């Protein structure tokens, strides 16, 4: 949407005004924190934001890793990459386990939170969640990739429904519009992670993620 791109461009100039990237010492502090928690980071040397925000992102990953340990293990461990060219995306997952964070949003928590809350108000995102759910959403993609889960099949199983359209209709009202954007269901697991780990009190998200945990503990892929 043109107005969204204009908004991002104005955000970018705001970020440029902040100017000074973090010092080597502050970067080392962040790198050490990431390493201690088995999360890789890249692109943060020029970060102009508050590293406490990124530490909270890492903390959110660590909580989910208690249920899905492969996301902080060996070759499949999550890498957080700070990306300066992401348009209006909050974040995106590439190469199965590399999560790109939009530098514009993550350099200013007020901007990130304001745009996220706007999406919640418009039912695009799960009710009762906040900016933390952006990373929870992306980790949902990583879990699906690493554990080879089939998000739509799990949703059909949880809801006892046979057809994709039934699932999508149900989730439009009970989870979020975003969860129904892709008909193969890949946004279902992400939005369910957003609701469950965001402690949103969403009945579907809670059932869905518990089913994912059960499947992976049993060693299945479904």
């Amino acid at each position, binding site marked *: 949407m043109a107005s969204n791109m204009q908004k991002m461009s104005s955000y970018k100039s705001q970020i440029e005004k902040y100017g000074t990237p973090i010092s080597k010492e502050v970067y080392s502090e962040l790198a050490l924190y990431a390493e201690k928690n088995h999360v890789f980071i890249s692109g943060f040397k020029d970060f102009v934001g508050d590293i406490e925000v990124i530490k909270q992102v890492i903390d959110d990953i660590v909580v989910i890793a208690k249920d899905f340990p492969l996301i902080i293990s060996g070759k499949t461990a999550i890498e957080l990459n700070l990306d300066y060219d992401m348009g*209006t995306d909050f974040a995106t997952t590439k190469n199965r386990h590399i999560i790109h964070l939009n530098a514009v949003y993550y350099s200013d928590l007020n901007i990130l939170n304001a745009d996220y809350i706007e999406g919640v108000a418009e039912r695009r995102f799960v009710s009762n969640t906040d900016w933390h759910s952006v990373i929870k959403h992306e980790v949902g993609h990583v879990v699906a990739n690493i554990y080879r889960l089939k998000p739509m099949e799990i949703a059909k199983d949880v809801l006892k429904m046979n057809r994709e359209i039934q699932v999508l209709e149900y989730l439009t009202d009970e989870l979020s519009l975003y969860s129904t954007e892709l*008909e193969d269901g890949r946004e279902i697991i992400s939005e369910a992670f957003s609701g469950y780990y965001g402690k949103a009190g969403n009945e579907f998200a809670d059932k869905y993620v518990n089913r994912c945990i059960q499947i992976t503990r049993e060693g299945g892929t479904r």
Partner: protein
Amino acid sequence: MKSYSEAMYWKTNKKWYKANYETNSYELTKLAPPRAIDSFRLYLKENKKLEATK
């Protein structure tokens, strides 16, 4: 995660679309405004691309 997706605008008003359970797909109603029609095209395009990569 997108901060906004125009491909879902058509779904913001229940009068603009209906689920066809026989074809397992969505359809727009006559009440859908031009922006919703364009948005639905984007949605179909996104999902067609997905289908092609399977």
